Each structure stands twice: as structure tokens, then as C-alpha cells.
């Protein structure tokens, strides 16, 4: 158990290191970051001065080492646009993103698991077909289009819900549905197939044979085992959700990290881009580490690997 945890931790550290390399490389993709960071009308003299001041003349490995040391201390440099530490800006926006992502995931689980179970129990009935079709459409629907269509119907058409900004619960409805639909569809299909597999197994038949009520068989005996793959996918879905948040926040003017990073890219504010990409990727790695550790408690077979 301890070796497994240590190895898993070491893996995560390597991945975090890799993330720092990628984030560093992004800025150096064009060869000379000076031209990216300065306004296009900068004079040759300014360019040379800036390049020296930032150390862009140094060998790459030295620059990376400097970047890494800064990143470890939480120093990604100042945002070019806001003239504040880039990381501080990212942390300011983080609660909004976490709120949106958590609500979207919560709604997805609340809808998807019961729907998947009902679909499996009433297999090949009209109910099953309707939810399967909805799940297929949900998986094919691009986030940005769904968001726009929801605004069209519920904000522009019916005047029921606000189309932008963060505030009360009403503000959260449309962005959370937009962000959560794809995940809902995916978890629903996973629950359905997992339940179908488990419901056909001998121990379920045994439970039924000895007179356990159908409700108890489904919700207790079957769901417990069908639930294991769902736990794994929740960690992985977080990546989809954080990525989706970039689009969703842009559409709904939600003041989170996703929107911040898109604006940073438009403004060519690269320290801010680096800080937000680094933070979002690190969160994903840490959450998956936690999920994996929790998982070993749920399914002890994993530890043996």
C-alpha cells in the first residue's frame, strides 16, 4: 500500500515537472519571446534592452531553470495587462471556476446515475430509448452551441434566466447545464452499461432468488459494483469540465480562470497564460491523485498492480 502511494506520488511529480516544461515551451515556440511580449511598435533598442532584462539571451536550460524556480515559489511574473502578479490574478478567479465546475459535476451525477439505472432496469422500453437518444445527442452537442441555444431560448426568448455574469443561483443555471450536459450524457451511458453487466451476474440472481426485494437488489447489490468505473471517470471528467469551462465561461461572461486565460491569449499577456495553464493542469493532476488514492479503498485489487 505504502509503495503504491509513493510510486503514485512520484508519478504525479514527474507529470507536474512535465507540465512546467510544456508551459515554458509555449512561450518559446516562435523562437524569440521578446517579440511576443512587447507591443508591435517597440523600437529595436527597446527590444534589445527588454531581451537582456528578461534574460532571453541566456541558454534555454538556464531560462527554464529560472522559470521553474519562479513557478515553485508561485512567481510567474507580472501580468502585462494588469500589472499584478499573474498567479494572484488566477487565484482571484479560481473560486468562480470551481463553483461552476462543481455545480456542473453535481448536476451531472444527480441526473445521470438515476437515469442510467432506470434505463438499464427498463431496458428496451420507450423510457430506455428516449434516454439513450438524449444521451447520444448530448454527447454530440458542442458546448458552445448548446450555451448559445440556451441563451436564445431562456434569456432572449422567454426572459427567464440571465445570460451572463456571476451572482445568484439563477446566474448559475445556464452555464452549469451547458458545461455539465456532455458529462451527464457520458456518465449516464456508463451507468447504464455497467448496470446491465452487473444485473446479469450470478450474485444478483442469488440475491433475487433468496427473496431480496427488487429495489434493494438494484440500488444496493448492483449499484455498488457498477459504481466503481463511475468513480474513475469522475476524476477524468474533471479535465473535460475544466476544458469546457474555458468555452462556457467565455459564452456566459463568467468571471473564472477559463475566461481570464482566453482574454490573456487575446491580449498576448503570456505570463498570465502560463500561470493559468499551469494551475489548471496541476489541479487536474492533484485531483486524479486523490481519486486514485480513494479508489484503492474502494477496490483493494488496485493496490496489487
Amino acid at each position, binding site marked *: 500500500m505504502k509503495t503504491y502511494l509513493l510510486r503514485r506520488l512520484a*508519478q504525479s511529480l*514527474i*507529470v507536474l515537472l*512535465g*507540465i512546467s516544461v*510544456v508551459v515554458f515551451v*509555449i*512561450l518559446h*515556440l*516562435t523562437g524569440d519571446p521578446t517579440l*511576443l511580449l512587447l507591443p508591435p511598435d517597440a523600437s529595436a533598442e527597446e527590444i534589445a534592452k527588454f531581451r537582456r532584462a528578461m534574460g532571453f539571451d541566456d541558454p534555454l536550460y538556464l531560462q527554464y531553470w529560472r522559470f521553474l524556480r519562479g513557478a515553485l515559489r508561485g512567481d510567474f511574473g507580472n501580468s502585462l495587462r494588469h500589472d499584478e502578479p499573474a498567479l494572484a490574478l488566477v487565484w482571484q478567479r479560481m473560486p468562480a471556476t470551481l463553483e461552476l465546475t462543481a455545480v456542473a459535476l453535481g448536476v451531472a451525477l444527480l441526473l445521470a446515475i438515476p437515469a442510467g439505472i432506470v434505463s438499464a432496469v427498463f431496458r428496451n422500453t420507450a423510457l430506455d430509448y428516449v434516454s439513450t437518444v438524449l444521451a*447520444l*445527442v448530448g*454527447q*454530440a*452537442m*458542442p*458546448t*458552445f*452551441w448548446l450555451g*448559445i*441555444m440556451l*441563451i*436564445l431560448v431562456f434569456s*432572449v426568448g422567454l426572459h427567464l434566466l440571465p445570460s451572463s455574469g456571476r451572482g445568484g443561483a439563477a446566474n448559475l443555471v445556464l452555464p452549469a447545464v451547458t458545461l455539465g450536459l456532455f458529462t451527464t450524457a457520458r456518465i449516464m451511458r456508463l451507468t447504464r452499461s455497467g448496470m446491465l453487466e452487473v444485473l446479469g451476474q450470478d450474485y444478483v440472481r442469488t440475491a433475487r432468488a433468496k427473496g431480496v426485494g427488487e429495489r434493494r437488489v438494484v440500488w444496493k447489490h448492483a449499484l455498488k459494483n457498477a459504481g466503481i468505473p463511475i468513480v474513475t471517470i469522475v476524476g477524468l471528467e474533471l*479535465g*473535460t469540465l*475544466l*476544458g*469546457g*469551462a*474555458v*468555452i462556457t465561461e*467565455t*459564452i456566459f461572461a463568467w468571471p473564472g480562470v*477559463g475566461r481570464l*486565460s*482566453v482574454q490573456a*491569449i*487575446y491580449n*498576448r499577456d*503570456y505570463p498570465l*497564460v502560463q500561470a*493559468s*495553464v499551469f494551475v*489548471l*493542469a*496541476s489541479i*487536474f*493532476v492533484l485531483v486524479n491523485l486523490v481519486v486514485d488514492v480513494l479508489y484503492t479503498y474502494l477496490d483493494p485489487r488496485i493496490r496489487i498492480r
Partner: protein
Amino acid sequence: METGAQTLRLPGTTDWWSGESWAWARRLARRRTALFGLVVITAVGAAALFAPVLAPFDPVEQDISQRLKPPGGTDERGRLHLLGTDHLGRDILSRSLFGARIALLVGFSAVAIAGTLGLVTGLLSGYFGGRVDDFFMRLADIQLAFPFILLAIAVIGVLGPSLRNIIVVVGVSGWVVYARIVRGEVLSLREREFVLAAVVLGSAHPRVILRHIVPNAFTPWLVIATLDMARVIVLESALSFLGLGVQPPTPTWGGMLADGRVYLSTAWWLATFPGLAILVTVLGINLLGDGLRDTFDPRLKV
């Protein structure tokens, strides 16, 4: 006995469709949803291929006097705008048809890149194992840690948006799924008798990989490639939507959506139709991909 059975089939009467090698196609065709998906994709492909013939208008020709015409409206010469016009008076139907070209072009090219990279890394990882495997799998973890879209927009933001950059970025970032599946296949194939026999008989590594492993790892790869096409098309539209895709005036579905978003309260059709085009295309691809998976390899988890 067996030869007797075979001679019953007279030369010239063999129907190519009933042949052994087409068994999978017949099985696939029996799945109605997969067939539906195939029909949808063929239709989208035809739309892309014959866009210049099918489109009633020039997709980039502006006519301000005809701007924001609702679907079914006609211009002064009585020509029909079936899906309406946009804020510059361009015909939405024609633009949607031409938009299919970019979507499929990026789709096929990026899948080709991602698929090739993933195939090679998966083969190396699974066949050689050990450090090679560790290296590629850690690389895969790093790749997966980045929200796809965020990495893509960051890189394209630096390199500048162009068709080539989009294809490369979307393609290169998509290798992991292929690598993992191919690796898994190779791991199990490596222990099979026919592969061991080939090794014992002295076949060199490249020969074993190319002749014995690749053909057997191909079907799962194909299933992933089909489903991945959907991801790529959505990603391309998302990039275009954010203004980081193929630049105007070239019609793209995502770009049309972004235009439409501005006129949402007055002209609903601008954003509705290109989005429907994406939805239908992606749905068709997913249905075909699911059908292929169920036909070839029902246990494949994708």
C-alpha cells in the same frame, strides 16, 4: 468433404457481398444506427465535395442590401435564401456547405497525424516495454493533464491562427488515446503463439511488428480514429468560434456561430444552422464509431 462444399459455388455466380471478407460489413449494415451514421457522414462528405455545385450562392459574396434575411426569404431577383442570410448578406446555406470542407479537411488531417503518432508510440511502448513504455506513458499523463482546448488556444495564440497550425496542434495533442489502446493490444498480442513463433523463427523486430502485430491492432485503431474524428471537428469549431481557427472570410461552422452570437436577439438563424451542422455531423460519426466498435470489438472501452 470441404472441397466438395466449395465446388458447389460455381465460378461467376459468387456474389462479392456474400464473400468471407465482407462478413464484417454485413454485420455492420445490420446495425441500423450505424448505417444511419454512415449515411449522415456520406451526406456531409458529399456536401463538402460538391459544395461549389450544390451551393446556391457564393459563400463569401457580401450583399449588404440582403443582410439578415430570415430563412425562406428571397432577394430582389427572387432567389431563395433557404436558411436566410448573415449580417453581411451572405447565404447561410452556401456557407454551411462550404464549412463542411474545413471541418472534414481538419478532421481527416488531424486524425491522420494523431493516429500515426499514437500508433507508433503505442507499438513501441507495448512491444519493447520497460523504459520505453515508462517514457511514453508518462508523456501521455502529461498530455492528458492539460485541458485540450486550453493548450490548443495557448499554442495557436503564440503561433498565430492558420489552417496548418490548427491541423498540427489538434493532431499532435490527440495521440494519447490511440497510444493507450494500441499499447494494450500489443501487450496481449506479444504473448500469443503466432507472435512468439515468429520471434523464435528469427524474425527481426520490425518484421514482427509490421507483419504480425500491426494488422491485428488495426481494428481497434480504426474504431478510435472514427470516434476521434468527432472530437477533432468539435475542437476545430471551438477554435474558430474563439477566433483562433481558420480566418475569415473562409466559412467555418465555428466562425459562423461566433458571428451569429452577436445577432442572437434579432436573428436566431445565424447561430442555429451552423451549430446544427456540427451536431448532425458529430452524431453521425459517433453512431458509426459505436457501430464499428460493437461489430469489431465490443469489449473495447472508449
